[in-house]
């Protein structure tokens, strides 16, 4: 029998970037906030210190900071005809675990998604006509505009200490920045990172081909920085242990060094770690949440935590899972197209080439997670005519090695033996002399790419695992084709000694190799309850005192990384929660 606890004003499920932002903002507004985090406490002093944090085996190969699939996973399949089987170990994506969540171990890439994404259906219908959008492509406008989000993007960029260069200041184009970005009120808080040799070489060639390369905007502080909240950052040391690792220099914009410690100092805030929320509890009408049920996974004790407002701040997949387990919103049915929860699950795609230069030394270990130069000519560029290619969306393409950790980074040319003397010779010869050109491509929503509850497999609480049905469709294959061609064109123009060319993806999505932790959708925002799970303030249409943060709100996936809008939407939503919602609890948008 669960022990019933004293009611709190707000309960946050998960304490990463979004939970941290909400904890800080709501407690500063005088609200009483409890965060339930199923992982452990994590601070840079204790958990990210040298030399232990520089352990590729522990953190990268064994995923020490990530969700443990022994405890929680999901089932996967490529299409509705297939039987879903459990993802028995991590591979394709790496959800975070513990205080700070994926915000502790991300690379830092931070983008402003513009109206070409936020108004995706309108943009393509206006440009190419309604028939251009395939019938099974369930994309929809987000119900929010870039203009509305601009101040909130700014807020997140200044909180997280983004290094970058503006390309569009109040409508004025700035040389050296991204000419295709939306107009910004001011520049990034920090100048760009020092470019690597790989980035410089890519930049020169891309420029000579008529593209517009610019430094990647990223939460790696190019110099020491104090953010507007007074959080202090050290300068990035280009240590090459960024993604999958915590930062020992406090140079990576993470909730662990910004919003969370501020919230922790507030008397209005309480954090309970190792607290696994199994369900959001609803009243008899099903229209109001009364709190959450959780288990202390160190003692096994079960609790009922009453709360006035419940805010889901877990990873995208876990937010959707909790909605499905709690019966918040109607589950999506891919056959009828009715229902909303689990709809429009999206991922990302890509292609990459490896270039070998006998006479260049890249020192791949002198790197940071966000280092690199890239081009946006094939994504946010509205003048890029998709018509001849027949797709929607696009790719960002860039270069800049972000680590040289040798368990995973050992580039060798095509035809190299897999072991033995020949393998050793090629590995020793090329390690310092290779660079990659990579890409990140959008994934448009499809009718059958969904999340629902698995009929067979269960978690340790006896609850059904979530089931993911996903594969790349024709649109993604076309993007991948175009991207590989551009990469190979740039690569050849760089005149390498040898090159492993980019190959367009044709095989099914696989759960095995790491691809990207940019899972999106499933609890999407939108303009009507029939087409979305939450409104533009990330508030459940059905249960008004439940809000759902994070990339689960994205109706489709851009070529850009998701954390920019994840942070901006959290700041946007919290203004609504501490303002109008607190004064007058109820739906913030009438259905």
């Amino acid at each position, binding site marked *: 029998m669960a022990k019933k606890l004293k009611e709190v004003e707000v309960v946050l499920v998960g304490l990463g970037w979004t939970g941290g932002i909400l904890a800080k903002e709501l407690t500063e507004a005088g609200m009483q906030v409890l965060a339930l985090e199923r992982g452990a406490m994590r601070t840079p002093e204790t958990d990210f210190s040298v030399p232990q944090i520089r352990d590729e085996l522990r953190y990268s190969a064994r995923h020490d900071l990530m969700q443990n699939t*022994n405890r929680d996973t999901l089932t996967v399949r490529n299409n509705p005809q297939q039987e879903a089987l459990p993802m028995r170990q991590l591979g394709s994506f790496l959800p975070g675990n513990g205080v700070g969540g994926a915000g502790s171990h991300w690379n830092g890439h931070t983008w402003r998604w513009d109206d070409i994404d936020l108004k995706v259906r309108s943009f393509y219908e206006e440009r190419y006509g309604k028939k251009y959008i395939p019938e099974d492509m369930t994309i929809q406008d987000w119900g929010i505009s870039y203009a509305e989000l601009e101040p909130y993007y700014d807020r997140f960029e200044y909180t997280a200490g983004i290094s970058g260069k503006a390309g569009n200041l109040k409508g004025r184009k700035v040389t050296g920045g991204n000419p295709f970005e939306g107009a910004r009120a001011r520049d990034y808080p920090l100048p760009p990172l020092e470019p690597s040799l790989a980035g410089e070489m890519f930049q020169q060639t891309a420029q000579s081909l008529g593209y517009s390369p610019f430094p990647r905007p990223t939460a790696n502080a190019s110099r020491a920085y104090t953010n507007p909240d007074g959080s202090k950052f050290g300068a990035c040391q280009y240590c090459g242990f960024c993604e999958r690792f915590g930062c020992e220099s406090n140079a990576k914009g993470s909730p662990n060094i910004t919003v969370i410690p501020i919230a922790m100092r507030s008397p209005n805030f309480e954090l309970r770690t190792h607290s696994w929320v199994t369900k959001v509890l609803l009243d008899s009408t099903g229209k109001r949440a009364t709190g959450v049920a959780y288990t202390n996974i160190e003692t096994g004790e079960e609790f009922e935590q009453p709360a006035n407002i419940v805010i889901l701040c877990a990873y995208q997949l876990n937010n959707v899972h909790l909605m499905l387990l709690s019966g918040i919103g109607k589950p999506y049915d891919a056959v009828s197209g009715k229902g909303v929860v689990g709809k429009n699950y999206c991922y990302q795609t890509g292609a990459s080439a490896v270039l070998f230069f006998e006479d260049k030394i890249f*020192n791949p270990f002198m790197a940071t997670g966000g280092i690199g130069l890239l081009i946006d000519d094939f994504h946010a560029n509205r003048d890029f005519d998709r018509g001849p290619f027949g797709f929607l969306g696009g790719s960002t393409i860039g270069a800049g090695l972000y680590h040289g950790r040798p368990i995973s980074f050992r580039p060798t040319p095509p035809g190299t033996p897999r072991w*033995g003397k020949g393998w*050793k010779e090629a590995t020793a010869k090329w390690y310092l002399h290779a660079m990659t050109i990579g890409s990140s491509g959008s994934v448009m929503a499809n009718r059958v790419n969904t999340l629902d509850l698995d009929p*067979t497999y269960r978690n340790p609480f006896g609850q059904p695992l979530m089931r993911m049905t996903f594969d790349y469709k024709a649109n993604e294959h076309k993007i991948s084709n175009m991207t590989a061609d551009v990469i190979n064109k740039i690569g050849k123009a760089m005149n390498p000694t040898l090159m492993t060319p980019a190959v367009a993806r044709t095989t099914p999505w696989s759960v095995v190799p790491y691809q990207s932790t940019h899972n999106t959708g499933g609890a999407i925002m939108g303009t009507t309850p029939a087409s979305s799970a939450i409104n533009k303030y990330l508030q459940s249409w059905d249960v008004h005192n439940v809000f759902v943060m994070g990339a689960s709100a994205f109706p489709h996936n851009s070529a850009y990384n998701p954390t920019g809008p994840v942070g901006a939407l959290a700041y946007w939503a919290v203004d609504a929660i501490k303002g109008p919602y607190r004064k007058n609890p109820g739906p913030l948008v009438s259905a």
Partner: protein
Amino acid sequence: MEDQVSDRRRFLKSAIAGSAAAAVGIPNKSEAQAPGAGTAPAKPPPAAGYAYLNPEEQAFVEALVDHMIPADSNSPKGTDVGINIYIDRACAGSWGKGDRLYQSGPWKLGAPSQGYQLPLTPAELYRAGIAATNRYSVKTYGKSFDRITPEQREQLLTGLADGKIALENGPPAAVFFGVVYQTVMEGMFADPIYGGNRDKAGWRMVGFPGVIATHQRNIVTYKNKRYPVEPLGIADVS
């Protein structure tokens, strides 16, 4: 082949006299601090005992790592780098026991895109894979894997890697080889505290500097230049 066997006997003898520190693969200080040992002749391997692998498995793994990582000017051979010890410790430890593996049934083969689906932990997979590979080796070549010729080993490993060999009553060959390949590379390149990459041989081979990495200025100073540095592991700076 005879060399392999006598090597192994010598190894087993020294293992019995092994010290506790060497047994967990921690390099002693003089070894860790030896400058520029990249191309120096291999030292005799420090004594080490096995925690998980049985004698048949030890012979298999030693032959395997010396075949995949032969001695040459780039590095000593696999057993001298401690890759066999790395694999033994990995199997004996939490990873080998499946601490991060979802282990509930039912178990089905599934499609390759659905990933690993066997009911075996990594250590159990190693055990089952070695036994099945040795059965195949005896049936095909008349001897166990550790006693066949280098050419036969090459043929057998290629067959496993490409999934061309069916291991009777064993795991799918490519799945077994997948974990073998992964752990051999980890034993070559993981921090030496885990028992492999002895004297940072793997890091020296490629030029990876290890755990000390403050490159804010180096990224400018050493742009397109070799960064000459003695690699350091976790134990060197603890």
